[in-house]
């Protein structure tokens, strides 16, 4: 019972944040609603017992990636979005289309799934076991993602650096 109540509360916050992201016209409001979604998702992970994932979600996603988004919005001084012809068409077809699609998925999930249920805090294990898995069964993906992050760092630094000025230095005299 408590599990259902908590799940519904945080689920509603998630969905409200997601819908707010779509409804807001200024990107900073969308970014902050996304932070709220991530916080509520972290609470959902806690309900499932994945405490380490919940903490990492807050530290990495809400505390680093979204800060990066907020920085870029502040730096580029992004303003309110204007409506163009293309966006009106997309609104007209996209929103009802997605509503129909998600209703279909919801119907399938709720009617065909049987009686599987998840109890509160279902996942076993302290973070030690996750570390074990990361370094034994998933060692190759772990090393590959570290190379991926290195490539991403180099790429981001190169892409965002100011281009060198094209004018040759003036000569005196």
């Amino acid at each position: 019972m408590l599990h259902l109540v908590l799940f519904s509360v945080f689920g509603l916050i998630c969905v409200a944040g997601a819908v707010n992201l779509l409804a807001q016209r200024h990107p900073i409001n969308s970014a902050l609603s996304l932070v709220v979604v991530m916080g509520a998702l972290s609470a959902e992970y806690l309900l499932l017992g994945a405490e380490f994932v919940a903490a990492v979600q807050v530290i990495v996603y809400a505390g680093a990636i979204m800060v990066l988004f907020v920085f870029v919005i502040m730096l580029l001084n992004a303003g309110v979005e204007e409506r163009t012809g293309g966006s009106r068409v997309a609104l007209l077809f996209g929103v009802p289309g997605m509503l129909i699609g998600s209703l279909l998925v919801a119907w399938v999930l709720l009617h065909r799934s049987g009686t599987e249920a998840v109890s509160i805090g279902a996942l076993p294990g302290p973070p030690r076991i996750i570390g074990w898995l990361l370094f034994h069964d998933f060692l190759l993906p772990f090393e590959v993602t570290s190379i991926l992050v290195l490539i991403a760092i180099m790429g981001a630094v190169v892409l965002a650096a100011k281009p060198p000025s094209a004018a040759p230095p003036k000569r005196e005299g």
Partner: protein
Amino acid sequence: MSIGTYILVSVIKIVIALFVLLTAVAYSVWLERKVVGHIQNRWGPTRVGPFGLLQPMADGVKFLFKEDLTPPHVYKPLYIAAPMIAVIFALTSIAVIPIGNVVTIAGLEIPLQITDVNIGLLIVLGITSLGVYGVALAGWSSNSKYSLLGGLRASAQMVSYEIALGLSLIGVLIMSGSFSLRAIVESQGGHFWGFIPRWNIFTGQIVGFFIYLIAAYAETNRIPFDLPEAETELVAGYHTEYSAMKFAMFFMAEYANMITVACLATLLFFGGWHGPIFGPAILQALLPVFWFVAKVFVFLFIYIWVRGTLPRFRYDQLMAFGWKFLLPLAIANLVVTALVVAIRA
């Protein structure tokens, strides 16, 4: 204990902890003004009450009665929300900080901690990461160039030093084997050779401690890393356009962050509440709290001492220091600690 009792005890603990924390914030302002004053060969506050002890009350009354003006060109929702965000996240991290052993009051076993999560250290790191939002949003929503620059610089600095902070804490984590703050403190009990306590700073985390301290000074935007809010540089940085109570909230957030950092340093490196314990049962329950508070006080004093003594870094020097020196040093500390622990096991 039943869930009703648990909730009641938790609410009482929260009320007491918040009250103590807010009083500590107010009096750490007093302590800073006195200590910095004496370092600079002047008295500090002396008029209001004996030794100026009522100065925080006077400051509070002043902030309450000051005119709370909102400049016309600010982005209102975020302008009002940013100080609230800063204060909320500064005060939340007290929830996982243990100040003493488990005491038995009226037959109930109550740990002196609002909640003992087994990922306590990660929660503190997460809350510190979220605290960047208060600064960044304050700087942006004020719609003025000093604020924006100050806000961007401050948040970039906080994000950069968070990495070194986290890595220095992993050394402690490897040595204690658990994320739970209570378990980390309990693994520091006992003595070597009878009198040297088995604190983490003596069992090899000295480099980690210094990295933590430097990174924490940068995280809380204190001298020598306080360029984003220094008066001579950027007027007042991200809180230029704030007045009265909202400014007081940023102030409170900064000092509450300082206190959290000092608490974490004692818990992780200096044995938390371990110290000589003697006497009857009531003393045995209170002495750990006393040792904890004493160690936190020593750290606050060091914070203020550094503030009164060192000059500040220029911004590019600050960022270069964080990325090019502190981060490799923290990684080296982590590797050496891991090697030693693995070889010993």
